[in-house]
């Protein structure tokens, strides 16, 4: 009996997955539970196990193709079994534009490698008619920074013209002598990076030579890896972030609350226990770990901030899994610590360290990313007093943490210096009203300001 292998439902909000790699090949013998292929969905790569034992008779979806979840991607059958007609020609057409014509009908007798080829335009491929190319070259404009408005994204002459004209996108045109330009091009030095000493700061040959001999000076400057006017294709993580943030911002009406927390006692508590934890449990407790625990305990008291909207129902999550937003080079990822309300600090610290580490390596599982029920986002290491955050859908609350700093505060009629932090919470007003959010934030403040009671009372 032939068994279809499908792309599994990878998470609550996952709609599509891309087959990254077939671990098994057509004709290979597989046993149930063995890894068959790798699928990428949202930001995570998952290995999918075989649902049955037998021969991998037919791969229906080749590597690199994105298909909706539950799409059959392969068929497993007994060695002698004849495959039903419908599998002989893969009829599953990807909906993605750039894979059109990608799937070709492949006979079962075709060689198993590379039978179905995918025609996608290379990432560096730029379409532009010669006139546009020439003008771009003359004006020193990088065509890859221009969005083409012509058929199939072709960069038209007018696109280059308006790019040059607006200047805002491309920066002002660099004045340079033809010799300097040629020299710079030969030496691979971007002309815009050379300081010109000629009239109107025109870049002269000597300037390029100097830039060439003194590369160190240029390197010491903090250089953004992005350039003005650059056009960056979104990678899959960026696309997910963009989609989710837009979805969240336009469906959940956000309201924001802030208060100031005296962190003095929490800092002291941490200082008192950090060495012991490190010695006995091998983990270093961070301020975030303490905050995560306090948040989890507060969520027990205010479960509406640990909930989601589903149709006309408010669903309170059965667990309290606190997500921690982790900044990556090119995005943001939110692994969650499961049942943080039930875990000890050491366990929270251990989980947190491991999750953050693997998040940065892109090695999180989908479950680790999808299980969050509330998010903590900290910019404490930046010089940021406070900020607002967009809810991480489908969650109903997100806590924001600004920097902790010594501030003069009035205590008992005296101005004293205390370590203060401004915390904020964004909530989904469909679920959480202002008073509840205020109470939550106030309760959390109390927990953080009286840490001994907080962590001892349970």
């Amino acid at each position: 009996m032939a068994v279809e292998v499908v792309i599994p439902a990878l998470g609550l909000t996952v709609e599509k997955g891309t087959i990254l790699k077939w671990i098994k090949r057509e004709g290979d013998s597989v046993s149930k539970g063995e890894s068959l292929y790798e699928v990428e969905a949202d930001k995570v790569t998952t290995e999918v196990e075989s649902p049955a034992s037998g021969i991998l008779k037919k791969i229906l979806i080749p590597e690199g193709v994105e298909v909706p979840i539950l799409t059959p991607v392969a068929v497993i059958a007994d060695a002698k079994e004849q495959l039903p007609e419908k599998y002989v020609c893969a009829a599953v057409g990807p909906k993605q534009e750039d894979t059109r014509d990608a799937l070709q009908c492949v006979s079962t007798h075709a060689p198993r490698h590379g039978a179905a080829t995918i025609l996608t335009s290379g990432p560096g491929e730029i379409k532009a008619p010669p006139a546009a190319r020439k003008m771009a070259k003359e004006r020193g404009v990088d065509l890859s920074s221009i969005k083409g408005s012509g058929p199939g994204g072709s960069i038209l002459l007018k696109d280059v013209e308006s790019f040059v004209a607006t200047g805002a996108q491309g920066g002002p045109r660099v004045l340079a002598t033809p010799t300097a330009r040629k020299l710079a091009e030969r030496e691979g030095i971007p002309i815009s990076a050379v300081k010109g000493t000629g009239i109107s700061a025109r870049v002269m040959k000597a300037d390029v030579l100097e830039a060439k001999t003194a590369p160190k000076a240029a390197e010491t400057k903090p250089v953004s890896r992005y350039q003005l006017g650059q056009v960056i294709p979104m990678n899959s993580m960026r696309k997910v972030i963009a989609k989710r943030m837009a979805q969240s911002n336009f469906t959940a009406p956000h309201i924001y609350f802030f208060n100031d927390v005296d962190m003095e006692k929490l800092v002291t508590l941490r200082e008192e226990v950090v060495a012991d934890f490190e010695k006995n449990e091998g983990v270093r407790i961070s301020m975030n770990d303490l905050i995560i625990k306090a948040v989890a305990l507060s969520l027990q008291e205010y479960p509406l901030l640990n909930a989601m909207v589903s149709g006309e129902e408010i669903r309170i999550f059965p667990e309290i899994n606190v997500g921690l937003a982790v900044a990556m080079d090119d995005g943001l990822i939110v692994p969650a610590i499961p049942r943080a309300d039930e875990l000890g600090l050491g366990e929270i610290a251990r989980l947190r360290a491991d999750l953050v580490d693997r998040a940065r390596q892109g090695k999180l599982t989908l479950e680790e990313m999808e299980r969050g029920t509330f998010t903590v986002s900290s910019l404490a290491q930046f010089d940021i007093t406070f900020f607002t955050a967009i809810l991480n859908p489908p969650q109903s609350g997100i806590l924001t943490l600004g920097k902790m700093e010594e501030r003069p505060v009035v205590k008992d009629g005296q101005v004293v210096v205390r370590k203060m932090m401004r915390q904020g919470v964004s909530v989904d007003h469909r679920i959480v009203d202002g008073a509840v959010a205020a109470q939550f934030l106030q309760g959390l403040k109390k927990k953080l300001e009286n840490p001994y009671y907080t962590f001892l009372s349970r």
Partner: protein
Amino acid sequence: MRELTFREAVVEALDIAMGKDPRIFLLGEDIGYYGGLFQATQGLLQKYGEDRVMDSPISETAILGAGIGSAIVGMRPIVEIMNIDFLPVCLDQLVNQAAKMRYMFGGQCKIPLVVRTTCGAGRGGAAHHAQATHAAYMHFPGLKIVVAGTPHDVKGLLFTAIEDENPVLFIEDKMMYNMKGEVPEGYYTVPFGKAAIRHEGKDVTVVATMRMTHKALTVAKEMEEKGIGVEVIDPRTLCPLDEETLINSFKKTGKMVIVDEGHRVGNFGSEVASIIAEKAVDYIQAPILKVTAPQVPVPYSPVLEKEVYIPNEEMIRKAIDKVMEYA
């Protein structure tokens, strides 16, 4: 100015030329007593006699051979090959002998020969009587090729052809014989290698030959109302070709459509596109499109001929729209 049909302009040019130069004689099938299949030599036998307007046997080889021989010995023959479809019958005479003799014999002889012929579909002539294979002859060095687009031009170009010291393939679009246009009285010439800009425009250059010029003009006028400037250029002669006018127009528009009734592959437009790609590459803003007959023999069915085969205004419109996507 008075108007003549394309046909009347041809007859008038032949008449005037023959009156001026006694060395000129006409030779071809049914050109004498019948006045030519398309009546383009009507009345000339009656006026100049059988010695100068000769009905030939049905042998294209004989017609061309006699023309070449008499040209070598000092006559100014104007021979007629009824349809361009028949020209391959005497292809050797035309492209190997007439076109090359002056070169091969070190200039000891010259061939001041005019080969008049007709082309074009639209009369149910099918695969043997309706082709527009003019572009094929561009391939052969030594031939001048005329593709007149108006009654005015056909008369002036015919004088130039007759006076040329080298063989000229003079192609008349048979669907234009009844077309009327202003034609000056008497003698005048239209030079070879000088294209005519029939309509000025800044957005797209449309190069069109023979009756396609008029279809292009219709579209150009429509487009003008929509604010699209179509520059229509009639090359008038394929060899020599007025590259300068084509390139100058292209430099202005950066976009080009070539409309020509020849088959698609090796079309006149293919050569024009190649010239642009070679000499004006930096001005190319959009794909250079050809509107041509398809790469199939001319269908006999009048419906297919009209709707599918012969390039029409709709096809030109679509091509212009397509290149304007790059505007």
